[in-house]
């Protein structure tokens, strides 16, 4: 899970750096829930017990 958390920290950082525009195609305001959604989905996808 640490890798997924780490990856999402980096993606969140990237979204803050790259999306600092007034009219974004990817709104910074929605970044939190969007990144939480993809992070959680990946945790579920990778979470199946071996």
């Amino acid at each position, binding site marked *: *899970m640490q890798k997924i*958390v780490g990856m999402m920290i980096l993606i969140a950082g990237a*979204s803050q750096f790259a999306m600092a525009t007034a009219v974004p195609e990817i709104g910074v305001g*929605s970044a939190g*829930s*969007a990144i939480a*959604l993809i992070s959680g*989905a990946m*945790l579920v996808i990778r979470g199946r017990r071996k």
Partner: protein
Amino acid sequence: MLPQLAIRHSAANDSSFGLFPRLLALTILFAAELLLISVWLDDAALISRGGFLGFAGHWGAWTVRGIVGFAAIFFTFAYLKSKAELTEISHQVKPIAVNPSLLAGHAGAMAIFTSASWALYGIHVGASAASLLTPIWLLAGVCGIVLGAFAFMPRLLWARIIHDTGHLWAYTLLAVVFACVAGGYSQVFWLPSSRLTYALVKSLLSLFVSGIVANPVTMHLGTSKFAVEIAPECSGYEGAGLILAFGVVWLWFFRDECRFPRALILIPAGVVIMYLLNAARITGLILIGDAGATRIALGGFHSQAGWIAFNAVALGFSFAARRLPWLTTTGHVGTTVAPPSKESADNPAATYLLPFLSILAVGTLTAAASGDFQWLYPLRFLAAAGALWFLRKRYAAVDWSFGWFGPAMGALAFAIWIGMDALLNTRVHDAMPVALAGATPAIRTAWIVFRVLAAVLTVPIAEELAFRGFLIRRFISADIEASPPQRFTWLGLGLTSIAFGILHGNLWFAGILAGLLYAWALLRRGRIGEAIAAHATTNALLAAYVLLFHKWHLW
């Protein structure tokens, strides 16, 4: 803030005041100070002064982003690559108390920095005095950061972190500087990209409507009823860049599972698909507007469709990288797939996260289909309630009971919430939203009932199962159900509380504190019911506060 909740006694535990709790405390201290300062400082005031101060005002926000980005990237990779070394440093720092003299020095430096900021930002001093004050202002700021850092951990141990992680600091610095410069100057690529997007949207639009109104000079495109300007910022560059970052990091982190060089094809494929989906997004936006739903087109759809596309491509990327035998080495071919009914039992992540993910997914989709009011909010309640009902048998082992402590923590979180809201003055509109006020009494009452039910029932259960029930324990062990609910690591506690706070928008700092209080409620007795009761109490009090005192901006 929190009392010592050390439950773990193994030699490798970091529940006492080791490295991670110190970093958490330092993060909270700096975040609180940054929040307080940013409430009344406006970069525009500094930019208007020109000269060096103007330069500082222009790059101030980027500098803060750079520092935050550096810390996040450095410690993420340090933890992933040098966990043993960090654990050793954590053991070394445990017997060392926080240095009160340096902490006092930090407070003094920040007081000087704040006073100088007041003078410089508020233009309370002339140009000559400002030139004298500027170096003092900068020095006080730097001293404040350094003294604060050294108060929580000695200089030698900071040096050891840098030493033990090799050249990570240099790579991180390069990445952050590159990101700042690229972010600042990326506009160069926007114009050619927007022309290609313009052509794509025009082609797609011609499949659905006739009589397209197009002006390639002004980049206006649409129909006689509804047209948009394809701004350079909306040219697809952002989404393509984001999926590029996602793909590179994914392939690096999970390189052991990928067949190289084949897996590299996923990166250009993801970028191209994301770019095409942006053209489809703009086409959809025009078609929605042309159909008469201009508020939806310019409101929710415009802001949400990009993230929906990113999530779809990112999920497709990870699915392909993990499931396509041509791309992965994980050997899924020929393995027996578990029957759907066993999925939850085999996957605790699904059990604890699906209710929360259903709220997020439905919330994103309904926001995209909404204008300036969330009429479809009841669907979030129904989605979470459905997920909880579907998984109800899996929650048999969950301790739902609670006593007085959980509600007390919830009441405290509520007090912090409204106090922080008053401090930040985030109040925009206090009146009931126009759309809701204009609805029939039956519809208005039904919407409010669903909103309250979601706030008091489904949201607390879903969020506490996800953050306190799953994530905190997942930082201890992959087998979360075998991990006692009173165990925790400071790293897990800190990151889950920060993530919880970030999800609460402008009131992110109040969200972090609330997350810590809910975690305290859980950890005191090891009952998730306490955390849920705390969260439900906060939300119930907020609902009453909104409805009784007309504080609608808090919803």
